[in-house]
């Protein structure tokens, strides 16, 4: 029942809980991401950030609560259908297709198959696929690397492939799980600039990261998770001043880049 409502936020997370066995990883989490926003989701290791991305994108079934995307309920929508709706994620462990070249890694995420296209695939020797790849390639800086395989690339380059693969389908919302893990300061700053430019391309962002400099600089708003609960929300300045946040997170592990 897609109910389109002009005033609705792009993503509405409403009372989502997630359990592994009996252990609650997310407890009644609610927040929104508006059109054109870059929103940060931070918290100490094990706070439930990755679990939150898994829950929103359908990779983990949620225990209770609702997720709405562009005013449309995502209950019962499979992960690949969410991706096709323009709700795309990356993985903390990148999960590139190691058998495929960079070009193939990107192009595999570009097209939407149909019975007709499968039939042409079977009967036609080689179709060319250029669905907006060039633009993304230069956006994330993969020129000249298209025929390499992930195994032959540096960590920073692999991160750019993951980002590029997520961007080729021109998503409405991009969920990034620690995209700066293992990047040096220069690469991280570059990533920040790139993320801030995404809303102009029509892509809003939900950013999970440990690199506080990146999160504070790139985000309009920040939600803070601890033990599966949202303990604070606000602008970077507000969050930085929040005592609960300082206690739970900033005071203890600022600058830590150890993935959780």
């Amino acid at each position, binding site marked *: 029942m897609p109910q389109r409502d002009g005033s609705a936020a792009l993503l509405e997370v409403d009372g989502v809980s997630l359990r592994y066995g009996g252990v609650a990883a997310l407890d009644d989490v609610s927040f929104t991401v508006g059109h054109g926003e870059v929103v940060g989701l931070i918290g100490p290791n094990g706070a439930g950030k990755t679990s939150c991305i898994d829950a929103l*994108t359908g*990779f983990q079934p949620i225990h209770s609560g609702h997720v709405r995307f562009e005013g449309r309920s995502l209950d019962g929508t*499979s*992960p*690949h*259908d969410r*991706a*096709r709706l323009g709700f*795309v*994620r*990356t*993985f903390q462990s990148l*999960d*590139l*297709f*190691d*058998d*495929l*070249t960079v*070009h*193939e890694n990107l*192009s*595999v*995420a570009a*097209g*939407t*198959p149909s019975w007709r*296209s*499968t039939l*042409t*695939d*079977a*009967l*036609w*020797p*080689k*179709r*060319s*696929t250029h669905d907006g790849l060039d633009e993304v390639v230069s956006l994330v800086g993969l020129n000249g690397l*298209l*025929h*390499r*395989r992930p*195994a*032959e690339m540096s960590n920073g380059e692999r991160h750019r492939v993951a980002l590029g*693969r*997520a961007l080729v*389908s021109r998503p409405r919302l991009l969920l990034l799980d620690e995209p700066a893990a293992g990047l040096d300061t220069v690469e991280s700053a570059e990533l920040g600039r790139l993320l801030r430019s995404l809303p102009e391309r029509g892509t809003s962002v939900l950013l999970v990261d440990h690199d506080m400099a990146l999160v504070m600089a790139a985000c309009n708003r920040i939600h803070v998770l601890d033990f599966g609960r949202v303990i604070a929300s606000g602008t970077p300045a507000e969050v930085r001043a929040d005592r609960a946040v300082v206690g739970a997170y900033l005071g203890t592990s600022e600058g830590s880049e150890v993935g959780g």
Partner: protein
Amino acid sequence: MLAGLGGGAVIASLALGLVLTWRTSRVVNFAHAAMGTYVAYAYFEFRNTGDVVLPVLGLPDRVHLLPTPTLAAALVFALILSAVLGLAVYWLVFRPLRSAHALARVVASLGLYLYFQEITRLRFPTAGATAVVRFPVLPEDTVRIFGTGVSANRLILAGLVLAVTLLLTLVFHRTRFGLATRAAAVNEKGAVLSGISPDRVGAVNWMVASVLAGFAVILIEPIAGLDPATTSLLVVPALAAALLGGLVSFGITAAAGLLIGMVQSLILGYAVRPDTTWIPEWVPVTGLQQAVPVILVLAALAWRGDPLPTRSALVEKPLPPSPTPRRVGLWSAVLGGATVAGLYTFEADLRQALIVSLVYTLLTLSTVVVTGYVGQISLAQMAFAGVAGFVAIEVADNGLPFPLAVLVSVLVATGVGLAVGVPALRVRGMSLAVATMASAVALEQLVIGSSALSGGVGGRSAPRPYLFGIDVGISAPGADNFRPAFGITVLLVLVAACAVVANLRRNPTGLRWLAVRANERAAAAAGIDVARAKLGAFGLASALAGLYGCFTAYATSTLSTTSFLVIGGLVAVAMTYLAGVSSISGAILAGLLAQAGLITTLQSSWGGGEPSDYVYVTSGLALVVVAIVAPEGLTGLARRSVARLFDRPAPEAAVIGGEVSDAAA
């Protein structure tokens, strides 16, 4: 019901061994019952003659040890032999394969299955239930329980199994050794920390499992008799029991094994009663009995989802890289031209071999699609072929002309393939191999084995095929056999099939297949419908297998169920892996390597080859060796060597993975 206790105890004992080796090495050992069968034959031979029969190719067949062995001596012999077998299999095969892809371990265990089944057949030429002079280990007198008579041996068997179960459970949960095993399965380091070497843990567990299998089969002989092929297939009900126990719980596994045995004997008892009339005559009763564990396997897999997650601590190696097909037109012209030339110039025996290879390539191509490209291990392709072969004859007998009969039966095979593929979507890796093998056994027992379809012992013959009025039959009355017209028909179909597969592989569909193969969750995140990608491949592969079945039907004067045995299906998968599972060239090489195909025929006509008796044994051995030393298969090896010859400066993966310039287009 209690009569099934004996069979159940044997199934339970085999299943306990499967759980043990799974918990140790994350291997579903398809060769488990085949190893036990070998031990049992060797035991009876030793008891009768005092000869030790060696299962190693190249060593002398037998060594005389004792003039008149006693029961105790024979039992000690069986204990030592089975322990040594278990140790050898662990040390030489599965220890080196610890971190290999699941398919490599499946292939290795299939290779062992072939090897042990065939070496049993070769070493005990009179093999068969009646040939074994029995010296029962357990008393045969009848005991009365609840008013029914039960042989004492069945009760003792059940008691023994329960004792073993209790012992295993205690050892696993109460001792440092058990802790080390559990730790080793998750994480090698954990086992090291517990102070016991993981290698020693693995060796002991494999020996125990092998002993359990050996004694189980020795003890089932008075109940069910022995036969190298059927006894080796006891692994299927044992797998059902082990899967019901989640491949973890010894207690549930043993209980499930006992229950399966009792249900099987109930079905048999019920189905053969004269007043049981509702079961139609064409349903094979033994098939029904065999189908129960199979249906249980499938239900257990579907219910548990995936009980066999991929190992976390040791990173699994990926499947061999899949090169992008290039110059398909050129290759088709060259190979097709050579084939036509061969068909018109060869003598009859080589023409036959060429046709066998052409037809077989359709089957190996189906494995390349579903396993090589999409990473789904299907052991049921031969069963789909069997269904198609007999359906083709059935509809052709009812008047449907040749190309339409082929079309209909291919559609039926595709439907059956999809029906097996849908529940298989919930499982992957090893458990998919188990599920598809179970489906293959079910199809063989219930559908292909049904006399209504396959014509019973007499078999069936396809009517002569005509294409646009031209006789394309394989033989003609009065004329020479193995006619080129039939070969060319198969060749055209094969070239078209290869072209379709090559096109799909080069286009976005094939990229999605490779993405699913590489990483399912990343594929889903990239918007790929993983279930649909797998089903599409399953459908195409079943259609190809169906083509193989049809042309086998038209190429065979009397088609019987022996053309489509489960074991033959295992050989086909194994040969494809051997040749190179992720490329079309691998499928073609596997076709050439087929039994009675071009290469084996040339080999034996030049006199240097092995007698054909040894084909299965040597291919079993070859499989194990290739799985360990050259997981990319022979074509992959060749491709890499050629690349090295021209000294391309790219790293290994890129060179095997196809041309660097490919994606530039």
